[in-house]
Structures are given as C-alpha cells and as structure tokens.
C-alpha cells in the first residue's frame, strides 16, 4: 500500500519527465506532424489540382527513398565538411592573431577579409572550377574561403574584448607570447569560438552541397544532382532530410562540447 508520504515524495510529473527526456518539445513535435499530415494531404490532392504527381511524393515514397540513402555519400560529405572546418579554423585563427598583434597588418587584411565575405558562394564555385583541376581541392577551397573569414572576424572581435585587467595581470607575470595566447587569449575567447563553429558549421553544410553539385561524383550534393536529373523529388527530400539531421547532430555535439568546456560559467 502506498502511503501518503511516499506518494508526496514522488512527484506525479517525474515519470512523465523521464519518458520525455531527450525528446523535442511538444510544440515542435506538433508542428512537424502537422506539416507531414498537410504534405500527405497535398500529395493526394496534387493530381486534382493539376500538379504532376511526382512533384509532391507521399510520405511512403519519401520513406522508401530514405532506405536507399548510401552511408558512403553521407560520410564523404561529412569528411569534406569537417576537414574544411578544421582548415578554416586554423587559417582563420592564425590570421586573427596576426591582425591582433599588428595594427598595420590589421589595416591591410581587414578590407581583404571583408571582400572575401562579400563574394557570393556561386562565384567562388565558378572560380574554383576555372582555377583548379582536383574536385576535392575545389570543394575544400570553396568551403575554406567561405568559412575561414567567419573564424577570423569572430576571433579578432573576441580577442579585442578580452579584459584589459586580465591582460595586464598576465603580462605582469612575464609570459612568452605563446603562453600569453595559450593560457589567456585562447580560453578567454573559447565561448566566442564555439559560437563561430556553430555558424561556420551551418554555413559549411549548406555550401558543401552546392560545391558538390559541380564535378563531384560522390557526396550528398552529387546525389541531390542525380535525383534532380531523375526528377525524383522523393530522393531530393530524403537527401535534404539527411543533411538537416546531420546539421542538427553536429550542432548537438558542439552544444555538448560547449556545456563541458564552459561549465565554469554555469
């Protein structure tokens, strides 16, 4: 028999919270299910509305396409994104450090960085096709040229915002330039760098597919191109879903890393 005390000790919402742990909020689920139902209704009504049936495939057809997703292409795209992000981060941060350390370097490089950021992605893809032969290099080049300036601008802004007091304290202990950067600047700008990674990741996932449309014979972008040539909207949907899930998964990893690294702020 459950006593009154025992009943009070276990709040009634506790089991419910346990059941829903890790799930998205109820509103998210409702809106997603709502769109799916609407989509299914549209797919039934399409012929009656004069829309070709292939243009709005049913959920069953999309699910079937999802089963045909090749892990190899997902891994190739993921590899290209991660490699490019690491290269972008290293270059972006190095340029930011140079700009931080020298006002004249900053004056020369800032307009160039701004110009890089203003050039449309499509132009970079065309340049890459015209300038380089290797497909992999073209893709990495486009991703790096788009993502590295994001890291540069964010890192530079964050370095400028590091407390003057902390810099003075650190200098009073006479660190080497490497110690100054590694023990003060890098940890101080870490929260800003993680935010930059989130921005650059979302940018890279969107740009990689466009870059892969040109010349690549592997990867999600290539598969999207094939699906488009075959007029398979279901396949386009399936690959797009994979991309979105990939982005969310990587963002989830970054949030986990952020929580772990920045627990001193909690």
């Amino acid at each position, binding site marked *: 028999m459950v006593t009154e005390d025992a009943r009070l000790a276990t709040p009634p919402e506790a089991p419910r919270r346990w059941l829903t742990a890790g799930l998205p909020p109820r509103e998210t689920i409702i809106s997603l299910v709502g769109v799916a139902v609407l989509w299914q209704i549209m797919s039934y009504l399409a012929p009656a509305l004069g829309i070709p049936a292939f243009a709005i495939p049913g959920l069953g057809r999309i699910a079937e396409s999802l089963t045909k997703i090749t892990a190899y292409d997902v891994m190739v795209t993921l590899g290209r994104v991660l490699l490019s992000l690491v290269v972008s981060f290293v270059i972006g941060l190095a340029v930011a450090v140079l700009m931080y350390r020298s006002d004249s370097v900053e004056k020369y490089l800032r307009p160039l960085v701004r110009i890089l950021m203003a050039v449309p992605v499509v132009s970079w893809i065309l340049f890459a096709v015209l300038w380089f032969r290797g497909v992999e290099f073209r893709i990495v080049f486009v991703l790096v040229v788009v993502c590295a300036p994001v890291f540069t601008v964010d890192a530079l802004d964050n370095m400028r915002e590091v407390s003057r007091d*902390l810099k003075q304290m650190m*200098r009073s202990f006479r660190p080497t330039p490497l110690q100054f950067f590694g023990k003060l600047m890098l940890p101080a700008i870490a929260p800003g760098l993680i935010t930059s990674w989130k921005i650059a990741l979302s940018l890279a996932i969107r740009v990689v597919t466009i870059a892969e449309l040109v010349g690549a014979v592997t990867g999600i972008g290539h598969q999207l191109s094939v699906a488009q040539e075959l007029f398979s909207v279901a396949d386009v949907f399936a690959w797009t879903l994979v991309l979105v899930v990939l982005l969310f998964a990587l963002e989830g990893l970054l949030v986990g890393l952020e929580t772990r690294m920045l627990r001193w702020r909690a």
Partner: protein
Amino acid sequence: MTATAPIEIAQLRKVFRQTTSGQSVVAINDLTLRIEPGQLVAIVGQTGCGKSTLFDLLIGLEHPTAGRITIGGKTPYDDFNDFRGRIATIFQQDRLFPWRSALDNVKLPLELIGLAEDEQQQRAMTWLTRLGLAAFAHSYPRELSGGMRQRVAIARAFAVQPEILLADESFSALDEVTAHDLRTTFVGLAKEFGSTAILITHQLEEAMAVGDRIVVFGKSATLLADVTMADWDRTDHPQLRAAIQGTLQNNAPDPRLSDR
C-alpha cells in the same frame, strides 16, 4: 625568495600624451626613491597622483620618459624577462581567470616559470592551505566571495616566491574586517619570506597598518613625506598625521590623471 637588491628609482619622469586633446600630462615628475631589500613600503596619495603609473613602471609594463628604475643593476622594463618569477602583483580586483579553479589560478605563474607539474600542484595547494582555502581548491572564482577571491590572488602572488611584491589598492575594495584580515596576512607573509613589498593605497590608515615606511605622494608623484614607522613612533602622531593629511589635501592631483 628573500630580496637582496634594493629598488633604486632615480629622477624618474613619465609623461603621457592624451589621445583626445594631444596635451601632455606629467604623471611622475622627477621622483627619486630608494627602497631597501625586504622593506615594506606603503605609498599613499590621492587618486591620480601618479602612484599607479609608478606601479606600471615597477612591473615593467611602461617605460619612463626619463630617469630609471634599477633593481640589482637591471631595469624591470628593459630587462623584462630577467624578472620572470621575481616580481609578483596583487591588484585591487582579484583578476582571477574565471575559467580556472582556485587551484589552477594559483598554479598559473608557476606554469609560466616552467615548474614541474607535480611541484606546481604541491606548491599551489600549500599556498591555498596557508590562505585557508584548501576546501575551495576546486571551486571556480564565481563560487567564491570577494574576500576569498582576493585570498586566491594573494596565494597566486606568493606562490612564485617573489623577491618583490607589488600591491595596488589590493584591499580597498573589501569590507573592513576582510581587508584587515588580509592586510595582516600580507604583511606576515612578506616578512616571513623577506620580500620587498610595495603597497599603493589612498588610505593613510592602511598605509600605517602595513608599511615599515610611508611615502606620501602629491601631484605628479612629488615626494611630500617619507617616514619610517620607527620615526613615526618617535614623533608626535597627531601632528605628523595632520601634516600628512594636510599635504594630501593641499596637493590635490591633476583631475586629468584620474584614470591613471
């Protein structure tokens, strides 16, 4: 480490050019002072009298416009790296790294001087224990009170066993009970290790509580008084005190220097 060399300040002058108006402001004008090894000197003066500029020059973060500071024949600004691990600072704010635990904050200067990891750990823990913070070694600064954070800052400064300790208004942001407690700790430790200590303050009472010697600055670090506590004890307190307070009031600093 016990200090062996005096700090010799000779005809020191520091002029800043204001970026907005382009005007020159004399922060320190012709200061000559000798501080003996192991001495505990309190420098008193109103805000903007040039005492914090002197602090930056002593740390080695600024170069004088004229004159020089020498410690054992070397200057802390030109021979900057020769003083690694020999000078330690305690500021008004604790200036702890918020991303490091109390223990890791104390370890910071030990890492910079390249001490072995186990020795860093042992020495930092010893100092935290001496400052009564052993139980908070793994706490982040945000989890500590203002007084506790300043204790960590003191532990960080003493952990390198410096010859010279520089404290800039280090206890003035604390409540009087905590400030008194930390002043006593500071003086005790400086004496125990034979470090030369310079405390910069705007409070005469604090200067008297800490210093073996009190140096009073007027405008542009003009030397208004330089009294050892032994002399103080031999003189008529109220008269000397009134004289020092009078000179402090009559030598109000240039307000343009208030951010220095």
